[in-house]
């Protein structure tokens, strides 16, 4: 497989889920391809089914129509080759220290033996600058630090694709900007493949190398665009944000400010 072959193929995927009294269609015939080392962003307003789509790639949900292939093999169950990083701060196990949260992931999935897991956990903790907190329990950390641990845990698994479900949405604006820069720095380091879900257009432009726009309820592909370059000027970025805003909300470019941060 070369780098230009698709790693992940999502092909005409319709997703539905049941609430207590409704059957809801979350996405309708969504197709896209993710290549190795892409920073692929799924962008859309609330209720466009982007998180549901990510969970389907994670294997927690089966499509009612279409197929999802990872390296040519159909995804039918959760597995450690696709690690999810959630928005919620409670994704770390409260009964394990920061380092044990990472080694737990590595040993529970039988990726590594105990000793190797320990070394790899230290390595990735160092990458997110949390070595001093290795033996702290998660409840003693700030929200941003917890997310960094979760990202370190996901990266330590060295999955074929890292799935991030609005990982910075619950953070304050300042921490959020820092975390975006840190993610890009980590990507520069290891060139992992990441599928990143967000509802923030500036975040998509900053983080993504490729951006998929979904329309709202049910989610359908509105556009697939090249992402911003990290070295883009502020003007170029602002123009890009306005362009996406116009596409998503069907208004002429430049009319009014985006309501989304």
């Amino acid at each position, binding site marked *: 497989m070369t780098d230009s072959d698709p790693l992940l193929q999502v092909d005409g995927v319709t997703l539905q889920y049941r609430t207590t009294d409704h059957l809801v269609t979350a996405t309708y015939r969504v197709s896209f391809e993710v290549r190795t080392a892409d920073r692929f962003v799924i962008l859309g307003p609330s209720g466009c089914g982007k998180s549901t789509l990510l*969970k389907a790639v*994670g294997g*927690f949900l089966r499509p009612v129509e279409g197929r999802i292939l990872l390296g040519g093999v159909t995804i039918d169950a*959760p*597995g*450690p080759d*696709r*690690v*999810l990083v*959630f928005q*919620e701060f*409670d*994704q770390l*196990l*409260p*009964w394990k220290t920061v380092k044990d949260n990472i080694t*737990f*992931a590595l040993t*529970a*999935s*039988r990726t590594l033996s105990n000793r190797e897991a320990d070394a790899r956990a230290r390595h990735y903790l160092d990458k997110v600058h949390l070595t001093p907190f290795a033996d702290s*329990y*998660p*409840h*003693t950390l700030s929200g941003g630090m917890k997310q960094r641990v979760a990202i370190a845990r996901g990266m330590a*698994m060295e999955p074929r694709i890292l799935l991030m479900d609005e990982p910075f949405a619950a953070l304050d604006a300042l921490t959020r900007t820092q975390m975006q820069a840190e993610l890009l720095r980590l990507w520069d380091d290891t060139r992992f493949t990441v599928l990143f879900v967000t509802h923030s257009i500036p975040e998509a432009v900053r983080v993504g190398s490729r951006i998929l726009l979904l329309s709202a309820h049910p989610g359908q592909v509105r556009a697939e665009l090249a992402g911003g370059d990290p070295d883009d000027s502020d003007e170029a970025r602002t123009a890009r944000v306005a362009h996406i805003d116009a596409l998503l909300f069907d208004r002429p470019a430049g009319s009014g400010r985006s309501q989304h941060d």
Partner: protein
Amino acid sequence: MTERPARPDVVHTVTTTGLDVVERPLGAGARLWASGAVRKTLVLAALAGLWEGYARALDNALLFPTLSSTGAALLAGLASGDLPRAAVYTLGVLLKGYAAGLLLAALLTALASATRLGADLLETLTAMFNPLPSIALLPLALIWFGLGEGSVIFVLIHAVLWAVALNTHAGFRAVSPTLRMVGRNYGLSPAGYLTRILIPGAFPSILTGLKVGWAFAWRTLIAAELVFGVSSGSGGLGWYIFERKNQLLIPDVFAGLLTVILFGLFVEHAIFKTVERRTIRRWGMQI
């Protein structure tokens, strides 16, 4: 819109000189007061003082003996070996019943988490039997299992089972969906999922269930021994209390009750509190 006068930017330099306190260790008194053991000892001492004072004022050893005469009776009971023998017997029966109750609760909860029908079964059984006082089953148990340990263990199981199963089941259901997905994401086996995600995640509830079950077991056992004390051969603490009452040895009755209380204090503080401190409090799941 009216023109407002321009306001200049203001920049301060921050320094810590001249500040009185940035961080200072607390005084000895404040640290002592922060210790739960110290505060609780004071509470116990106050209660003991109240007891002694009231009993002395009442001056009727048949109704309410003083703490000192109860203490003397306790020491005498310990020295004669009657009280330790009764306590050991009671504790033995209690542990057997508690363990059997926990085992059954584990089985029922496992069934309830595995299948929806199992959950329905557990919820229905709990709704039916939890409000039923265990002691009310003792006459029936005596007919079924005869005059012996078997009947008492049966009612003990009834006392422990529902409280523990109900709390554990509720705890499992309260484990956050995110944590569940984390467990499944890393490919845990069903057994690993149970022991490494569900049980620690539900531990606050499980611990509450264990405590409530333990208290219910004590009550039921002492009551069973008091009412049907003769049923179980050599007799435990309840029987000790009942017998001494018949002989109007009231300080001995109080000594028996005090033993039960001391056991309760010991188990709560030395066992449950320690487990709590080392698990759920350390993990930040309880303040």
